């Protein structure tokens, strides 16, 4: 009898889960499997797929532009992740302090995050564009005669993309850090104060260790997000100058939807998928270990 009740409860649970599971299967699981299938075929929309085995992967490995795009993506991950985390933490510390007006500052810091990417990119292109941009005009007005090409020099273009990305997304990290900061028990700080610890010592010995798990979470989320970089270079530099700021996702898009080489594009997607999986796996590892420690 008891067993039967358990069964019907299960059924109800599955019924409630069904809409999600169906959509998940249709739009996540199926495309993943389908993409894997396509990566072994010559595939164009409208043309019968032809099985070619590992040919697409071979084409991909021999394609210098693929390696460049992968390199660009890794470069962005390396330069953006620490900056986004450090600034996010600093901002969280600032808005968590007992200063006046932190609610307003908090909202201001978070506000860019709600903008759509096209709006964000237009704003930053307007600031960075050569000859007529806001930044160039300001520099000219203070007597800098030298033209600086923020969007068309490969080093500066990355900086421009980084600045725009930080401005746009750092608010999210700030909110996560803020949540972490507010979970730290007040008593620990009081004890530290009694012991005569200065603000720096308190930060190193109390704040940072308490934030350990949230930092791990943000590092992983941020890394995965940075790997998925697409819109910022696509809209700000077009992947240029030339192809020097073109990330992997943009190259996959161009291969698949412009060159109509869905097969090669799918095999590249699988490389990216694999990298992302590794990070998701790391996240799982870290968090399951933490939970065990908690017990």
């Amino acid at each position, binding site marked *: 009898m008891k067993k039967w009740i358990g*069964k019907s409860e299960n059924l109800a649970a599955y019924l409630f889960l069904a809409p999600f599971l169906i959509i998940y299967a249709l739009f996540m699981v199926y495309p993943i499997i389908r993409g894997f299938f396509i990566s072994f075929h010559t595939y164009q929309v*409208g043309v019968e797929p032809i099985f070619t085995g590992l040919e697409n992967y071979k084409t991909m490995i021999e394609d210098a532009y693929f390696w460049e795009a992968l390199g660009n993506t890794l470069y962005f991950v390396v330069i953006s992740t620490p900056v986004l985390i450090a600034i996010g933490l600093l901002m969280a510390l600032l808005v968590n302090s007992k200063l006046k007006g932190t609610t307003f500052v908090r909202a201001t810091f978070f506000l860019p995050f709600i903008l759509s990417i096209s709006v964000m990119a237009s704003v930053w292109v307007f600031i960075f564009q050569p000859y007529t941009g806001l930044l160039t005009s300001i520099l000219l007005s203070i007597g800098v005669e030298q033209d600086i090409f923020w969007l068309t020099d490969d080093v500066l273009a990355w900086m421009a993309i980084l600045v725009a990305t930080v401005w746009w997304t750092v608010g999210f990290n700030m909110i996560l850090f803020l949540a972490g900061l507010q979970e730290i028990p007040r008593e620990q700080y009081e004890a530290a104060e009694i012991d005569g610890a200065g603000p720096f010592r308190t930060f190193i010995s109390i704040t940072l260790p308490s934030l350990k798990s949230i930092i791990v979470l943000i590092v992983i989320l941020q890394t995965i997000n940075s790997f998925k970089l697409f819109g910022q270079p696509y809209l700000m530099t077009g992947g240029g100058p030339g192809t020097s700021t073109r990330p992997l996702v943009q190259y996959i898009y161009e291969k698949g939807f412009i060159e109509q080489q869905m097969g090669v594009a799918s095999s590249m997607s699988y490389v990216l998928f694999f990298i992302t999986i590794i990070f998701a796996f790391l996240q799982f590892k870290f968090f399951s270990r933490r939970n065990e420690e908690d017990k």
Partner: protein
Amino acid sequence: MRNVSVFTLMLLSLLFLVAGCSSDAGSGSTSGGESNTTKLTFWAPFSGGDADFMKAMVDDFNEQHEDIEVDYLTVTFDEYYTKLRTSVTSNQAPDIAIAHSSRIAELQSANLIESLDSPASKANLDWSTYNENVVNSAMVDNQHYGVPLDTHAEIMFVNKMLLDKAGVLNEEGLPVLGEGAEGFTEFLTQIKKSSGKEIFPLSSTSAGNQPRWIWWSLYSQLGGELLNEDGTKAAFNNEKGLQALEYMGGLIDQGLWPKNIQDGGELFLANRAGAHFNGVWMTGAIEQNEALDFVALPFPQLFDEPATWGDSHTFALPVNEKQTEEEKVAALKFADWIAEHAITWAEAGHIPSKTAVIESKEFQALPYRKDYAEIIDYVSFMPPSKDMTAINDLLGDQLSVFTNGGTSAQETLDILEKEVNKIIAN
């Protein structure tokens, strides 16, 4: 185990769902059952002014035709061709759609568009009323695949005020260009000498399409070909290709075409550029600016023969099994009617494809357009190749690296030759 079976059940129900979706969702085209009106769906990738002009033309057509009703839909350019492809494979293709002539070979090779010859003759469409050069740009294997609406080509705009200041404007208000390439360099040098740092002798965008269009115009003037005769190999890594590219490099090195221009049109609009290369569609945008006194002219002839980069908007018939012959004929009647009434379209700056429209009083009365309409006879289209989109993208990227100073002219051509051959081989 129980869990698994529930999951299987759900997968099964999902399969039914998918099967249900793919069977028959009905196509966009329906021939009016009881009434005698043929309803057509029409897709185009136009935005801004172009979209408004097209909308006005379609509205006129609908008003004047009892038997045909066209439903016009604009799709953003970025996703237009992808959407067109998927619509054909899912049997939801529009009855008629705009396709660039540079895409015709690609669409045809993927079996996405149909030959127009049979429905065109039933619709009494007379190809000889169209400009031959443009009609040919939309042909594959001696068959018509596109009814051309226009050509939109690279032309030159000059700023009269700045040219006058530099002493390179004659009494008729036209630029004084010396002979050939040297003459043009000299012309730009005069503008540079007479103005300060904030003036650009030539302003054209330094990345993306512009470097490709300018190189292709110059290379075509030298009589160059992009691919070999059967389209299987790159054929531009030669003296002529190098000469054209080095000329561009020279302009950049001498500061006549300053590096890293993000939006050359904007500089020209702001009265900050002497000369400007851009597509004809800029005419409609530039003439809105009353503070700008300009002339629009064909792309200057710097080498052996007149030529300029160009493409063409054409009407194509996407493959649709459910489309009746009657609908096809109606679609081509519609295309032919729009081409015949393309005077509205010319307001955007495009050159109409029908000779009679160009010769009409209305067209000749439009300012600027007639000054460059002659280029329709020598516009140099990219060759028909199923890989043209990929090749164009590659050319755009790599030539931008060159204009940015990243590679030398010879290196650029070497890289391009290798990569173009790779694309074709794939």
